């Protein structure tokens, strides 16, 4: 955990994402699957993705202001952005994250 948390300070180019899910619910599984796919397809290596199960770390829900599940938080680059849902529409996700393609 702590090791992962330190990843906050990464290089400028990298997108820092944290996905909060609640256990092994169908929505959680779907979200994880979709995010992995989007990242692999579109972001190649320019991202850091951390997946946190709120059941295992309930204190993080309050610390990180998580209400909805699943929630994908883009920590870096700013502005901070939160996407909620199962991320089925990859275009919407890309747009929501504010990623511009060259």
């Amino acid at each position: 955990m702590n090791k992962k948390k330190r990843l906050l300070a990464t290089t400028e180019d990298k997108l820092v994402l944290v996905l909060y899910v609640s256990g092994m619910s169908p929505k959680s599984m779907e979200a994880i699957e979709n995010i992995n796919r989007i990242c692999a397809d579109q972001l190649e290596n320019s991202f850091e993705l951390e997946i946190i199960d709120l059941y295992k770390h309930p204190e993080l829900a309050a610390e990180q202001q998580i209400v909805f599940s699943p929630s994908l938080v883009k920590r870096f680059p700013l502005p901070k952005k939160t996407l909620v849902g199962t991320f089925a529409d990859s275009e919407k996700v890309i747009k929501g994250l504010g990623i511009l393609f060259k």
Partner: protein
Amino acid sequence: MTMKLSLKEIFPKTPSGIEGLDEITGGGLPKGRPTLICGSAGCGKTLMGIQFLVKGITEYHEPGVFVSFEETVKDLAANVQSLGFDLEKMIGEKKLRIDHIHIEKTEIQETGEYDLEGLFIRLNYAIDQIGAKRVVLDTIESLFGGMENTTLLRSELKRLFQWLKDKGVTAIITGERGESTLTRQGLEEYVSDCVILLDFRVIDQIATRRLRIVKYRGSMHGTNEYPFLIDESGISVLPITSLKLNHSTSSEILSYGHAGLDKLFKGNGFFRGNSTLVTGSAGTSKTMLATYFALSSCERKEPVLFFSFEESPDQLIRNMQSVGLKLKPFIKSGLLNIHSSRPSLSGLEMHLLVIHKLISEHKPKTVIIDPISSLVTVGNNSEVRAMLVRLMDLLKVNQINAFFTALTHPQSADYFDFTVDAVSSLADTWIRLTNHSDAGIRSRTLSIVKSRGMGHSNEINEFVIGDKGIKLKNNSSAK
């Protein structure tokens, strides 16, 4: 009817800690179930929630969780500090947890299906951390602001309320008043156990707060609108005490504090717990009689609460001193409490609430309201009558000797005067004072119109006022 007997076991109650509310609900909020408190902005929802938690901690040893969707912990703590609620200290002692849920709507985007599991986990964690028995969600409807999928949120809230029940916590959920529904999102459909509506309205430029129990499943409750007050000790609700006439009566006879006046009654005074009404136009020495009444109670070492709506305490003391009635020593010894305020400062209900509060604080044996007619000016007739009945009832139940003065207009007959009409039938004894001029001399008279359960003089007694107070003329034994 057989069901009614077992309701208490099926639906146990949790004392709310809000003065008066527990009386209306017959014991408090439904234990282990959610209660919805709704009302427009500024009606006291948040405060009611906080007081529920704070009293739960300080009086019933039940830790509580406050989930705030609007105010930060700091703001909340600052807002209730003036009520003597030290939230920071309770948080430090792990008896209270405040979770401020801050959602920046501009940062959030919906991409498919989601749920409120994050909130559930947060809440569960907070409850378990301190072993909370009470939970307040203030105001959960703010979740809806800016979100597209309201159907989904609605079903999630329904799940949340069920979850709270399963968790066994007694919860308060607040909701903002909607246009045609009790709450904007129709939460009342989901929280079906107990719904309380708060209202804040202005009638004749006087603001009054009212509370009504819209529903309370499986419980008897008062259905009226009850005025409530927010003051330095938090929220208190004015319940209408039972309007049954089953109070006990005493046959002990007490003195009016004036030998001449006592003599006009067969029993040489009045029965303990009686109410006396004195009517008269301006300057007929109603207040003076009230002062005699107060002093006699003080001499019996029985505390007096004197509501003076026209004179300040100092003015009253000075004026009575001029006719040889000394109030000061009894104020010093604490037997006499004079409470002065302008009647138009607040609504009639507020006055009654204040009277109610002061009575429960000081536990007086004698209450004087001088004049009761000034209270009448601040409400409409039907309200006034209901309020006076409540007041009389409160005094009777507590066996308090009551003394009211009422100002009447010299020309009009008593029965056209509303106050007299409203009070006279409730009062046990009615003394009428007059002040008229014949042949260049003003003469004062005192007569007894009625006295329940006691014979009395039928004469119109002339009297004069001198340095030593009231002196009845026709009465040889008068002072």
